[in-house]
């Protein structure tokens, strides 16, 4: 770890850059955390959701007569009930990120009304005295569906024979295009390949859950269990329920993992509060693991036809591609991000003068798609880095040297990448030394010393080395707000509009505030997430909490010091601008000092801060992998994996390292194990953790990460770059390159994930029947 020490704002015990153990951990490890399911209320009822078992069909009827008479059942709400209560309106869930009028027709209604479009599509909600009673009654709701031809994959979607939304006339809502330079640029060497990534997603330890309470007398709705983006969720909920926004309070509990999936607005985020309001009783809902795998956002399912054009010396001239993202049945809140980011980010950290990428959304009868850690970048890095290895091999250039020749150089920063359309966005890499990260990676990995192992057979297993370079976007705006309150006890309370989804944000915020105020961390308490704390906040996504929220802390600290100066001026007998605020917030002038506690009256001294930015940060790095492949079983052992990433500035090396290692582990899960399988009719086959394989610590013990802060971002006063997604991004590319290198003597290479033993075994077998180019 190589965190940069804080400079000008630091006081004696500079907190930024120190490996501080997470404040959150003591409470969580003692079992004192408070998650949604730890909440209990007097008279609380429980909800269970009735879901379609049919992938595609006309909803003929939902017969609740039997269920409603079962023990403990208080109510069953169907689409007709929702429409009746809301005066003829069926709310749909709007896109939160990059909304467009063209995408509105594909939004998910809170309950299926005329059609069901995936297995798991909610058709009713049952409320009962206990969760068990609700579940039993949910099974007794008779749902009559007239099946329609299923659209099981994007190929079927493209045929448009069966339509998910008949009125639209096509299963393809939109195509994003990213372009730069001349799309038709020619070069002496061209290679075209097809690749794909399988459907998988984040599986957080804590499943989704909500507890909604309706106070009829005050007309107030309180929803516990908000995560990720509580203010955005409140805005959507207010619109769906015909309530003013300030009549809804979203309360953030401890959150057992987010990764992009938890905390977006799902149908249940309407249904549970709706039921609470109808019944005037608190209603709780917690999904089980089958529901979690079936109903939370899926991600990653993409395929691509990609073409790389190079000079003979390996200099890349053009990158062209056509890709399809399997979006599932509806466009959800964050669904636009994976296809859009794939398009704009496909060229990665490389200087490619000519780029033309088309990425189409395709609708299928599967669970809807949203963002999952490194959305579009994990997939794009796999596609690009595989093709680059093939090109390097064809041209007889060492894979490290091939990348070295093509990385964006320091002198080219800020570097403009491809522009995305139709919602036009120009984008620049903020800065950094991409080549240095690659050199550090190959040095620390010992690439040169291991190079002789490339493709070697040792004790029956084939060894391979693989490499991938990457960038990680972060720091989504538009802004973040922070409020600091100095109390009479001398403690500072920090309120932020960012959210904690388990990433250790409380600790990191305290470190930033500690340096900014020259106050020990122990004197800073961090409050976050709930809508009761702030007027507005923007949450936790796109690796934004440190960069945007942290920069707002600096602004608030400046204002708090100014407020202290003003308060101290009269007592010190000087003007406010003559007062100096020293360590521990002690105000002084001309040798006289006043402790902060003495300045606080009946009310705390309060200061607001904000940071507004539309400029993203780009953390970057390289990863190398060493594998051994057993051709008899198809099993791959990961012997070594190393990522080097520069995140501009490391606030806390310990939590940053945890982010990196956790990201790598999730990436390895996606590369080797995790697969949300549907059959050819759209039936879901991965409804338990025995079917959906997650990596465990023993699967991949040899992983290493070095995270540096050598090149601060010019886009924010902290110099930080978003660092939460980076670990996952290069994994598929690096490891697939290593496996392909190992199998080079068979003349086969990896074109799709996951690299399950069966997949690798079949690749080896295929080389025995037909000769294929590697």
């Amino acid at each position, binding site marked *: 770890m190589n965190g940069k020490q804080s400079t000008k704002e630091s006081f004696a015990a500079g907190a930024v850059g120190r490996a501080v153990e997470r404040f959150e951990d003591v409470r969580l490890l003692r079992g004192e955390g408070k998650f949604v399911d730890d909440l209990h209320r007097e008279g609380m009822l429980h909800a269970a959701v009735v879901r379609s*078992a049919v992938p595609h069909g006309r909803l003929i009827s939902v017969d609740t007569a039997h269920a409603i008479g079962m023990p403990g059942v208080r109510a069953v709400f169907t689409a007709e009930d929702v429409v009746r209560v809301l005066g003829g309106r069926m709310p749909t869930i709007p896109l939160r990120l990059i909304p467009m009028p063209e995408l509105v027709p594909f939004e998910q209604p809170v309950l299926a009304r005329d059609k069901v479009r995936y297995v798991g599509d909610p058709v009713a909600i049952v409320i009962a005295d206990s969760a068990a009673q609700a579940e039993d009654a949910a099974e007794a709701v008779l749902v009559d569906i007239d099946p329609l031809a299923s659209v099981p994959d994007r190929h079927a979607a493209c045929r448009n024979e069966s339509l998910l939304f008949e009125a639209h006339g096509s299963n393809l809502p939109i195509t994003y295009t990213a372009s730069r330079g001349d799309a038709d640029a020619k070069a002496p060497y061209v290679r075209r390949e097809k690749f794909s990534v399988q459907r998988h997603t984040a599986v957080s330890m804590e499943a989704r859950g909500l507890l909604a309470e309706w106070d009829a007398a005050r007309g107030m709705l309180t929803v516990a269990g908000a995560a990720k983006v509580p203010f955005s969720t409140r805005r959507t909920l207010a619109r769906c329920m015909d309530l003013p926004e300030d009549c809804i309070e979203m309360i953030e509990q401890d959150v057992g993992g987010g990764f992009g999936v938890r905390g977006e607005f799902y149908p249940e985020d309407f249904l549970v509060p709706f039921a609470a309001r109808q019944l005037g009783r608190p209603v709780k809902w917690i999904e089980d693991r089958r529901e979690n795998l079936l109903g939370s956002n899926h991600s990653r399912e993409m395929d691509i036809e990609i073409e790389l054009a190079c000079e003979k010396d390996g200099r890349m001239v053009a990158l062209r591609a056509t890709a399809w993202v399997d979006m599932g049945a509806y466009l959800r809140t964050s669904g636009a991000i994976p296809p859009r980011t794939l398009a704009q980010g496909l060229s990665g950290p490389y200087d490619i003068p000519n780029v033309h990428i088309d990425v189409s959304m395709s609708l299928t009868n599967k669970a809807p798609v949203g963002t999952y850690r490194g959305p579009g970048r994990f997939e794009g890095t796999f596609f690009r880095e595989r093709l680059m290895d093939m090109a390097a091999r064809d041209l007889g250039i060492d894979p490290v040297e091939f990348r070295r020749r093509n990385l964006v150089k320091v002198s080219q920063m800020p570097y403009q990448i491809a522009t995305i359309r139709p919602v036009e966005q120009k984008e620049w890499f903020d800065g950094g030394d991409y080549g240095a990260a690659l050199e550090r990676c190959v040095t620390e990995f010992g690439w040169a010393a291991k190079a002789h192992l490339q493709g070697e057979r040792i004790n029956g297993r084939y060894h391979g080395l693989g490499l991938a370079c990457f960038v990680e976007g972060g720091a989504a705006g538009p802004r973040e707000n922070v409020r600091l309150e100095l109390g009479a006890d001398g403690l500072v309370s920090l309120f932020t509009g960012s959210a904690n989804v388990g990433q250790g944000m409380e600790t990191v915020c305290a470190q930033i505030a500690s340096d900014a105020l020259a106050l020990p961390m122990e004197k800073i308490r961090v409050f976050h997430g709930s809508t009761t704390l702030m007027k507005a906040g923007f949450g936790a996504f796109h690796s934004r909490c440190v960069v945007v929220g942290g920069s707002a802390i600096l602004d608030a600290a400046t204002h708090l010091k100014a407020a202290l100066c003003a308060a101290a001026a009269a007592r010190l007998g000087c003007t406010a601008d003559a007062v100096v605020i020293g360590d521990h917030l002690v105000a002084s002038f001309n040798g006289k000092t006043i402790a902060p506690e003495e300045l606080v009256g009946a009310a705390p001294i309060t200061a607001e801060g904000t940071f507004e930015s539309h400029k993203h940060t780009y953390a970057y790095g390289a990863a190398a992998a060493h594998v051994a492949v057993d051709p008899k079983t198809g099993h791959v052992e990961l012997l070594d994996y190393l990522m080097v990433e520069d995140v501009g500035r490391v606030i806390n090396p310990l939590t940053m390292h945890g982010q990196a290692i956790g990201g790598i582990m999730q990436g390895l899960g996606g590369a080797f194990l995790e697969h949300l399988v549907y059959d050819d*009719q759209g*039936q879901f086959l*991965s409804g338990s953790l025995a*079917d959906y394989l997650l990596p465990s610590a023993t699967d991949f013990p040899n992983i290493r990460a070095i995270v540096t802060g050598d090149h601060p971002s010019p886009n924010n006063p902290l110099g930080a770059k978003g660092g939460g997604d980076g670990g996952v991004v290069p994994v598929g590319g690096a490891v697939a390159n290593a496996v392909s290198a190992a199998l080079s003597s068979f003349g086969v290479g990896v074109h799709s994930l996951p690299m399950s033993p069966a997949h690798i075994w079949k690749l080896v077998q295929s080389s025995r029947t037909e000769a294929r180019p590697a």
Partner: protein
Amino acid sequence: MKLAGDRFIPREQAVVWAALNDPATLRQSIQGCESLTRIGTNEFQMMMLAAIGPVRARFNAKLTMSEVQAPTSYVLTFTGNGGAAGFGSGKAHVQLEPQSGGTRMRYEASAQVGGKMAQVGSRLVQGVAEKLSEQFFTSFVAQVEANSPPDGAPQSGPHEAATSPADRWYRQRRVWAAVGALALVVMFWAASH
């Protein structure tokens, strides 16, 4: 999802055909089978208890037959509904042909399972189907052997001749219902492919 297979039964075709006509034999051969009932000209209903891992349910199966070429082949379509446990549907083509010392029964089936059974049971389906299938054949062959002498003289011959065409027609329908039950078993098996 497709499945094909065959079994040798050491009795001549007419005997196997006749045994398949006996609902009692079939009910005892299909584990969990509770009833076989005719509900229409070409439609039968069967109740069957089945468990696949964590999913246990009573399946209400509807069987529809077509393309009957007595006594050698037919096509059977079936849908089974296990309520909240899920559902299955598919098509089976079954053929009997004489072979030295007995009869060979061939089947080709395509099937789908859906709902909870597919979500949490798909990885268990093959094992369950193989077990049910094995139990069916073991039990069926044992009963055929017990009910007919090894030289293959069909005991039911005279009775068969004496029955009215309507009776024979009805018995034939029960054959298809029973083989439909077998197809349902096969369907579980097929689901994992």
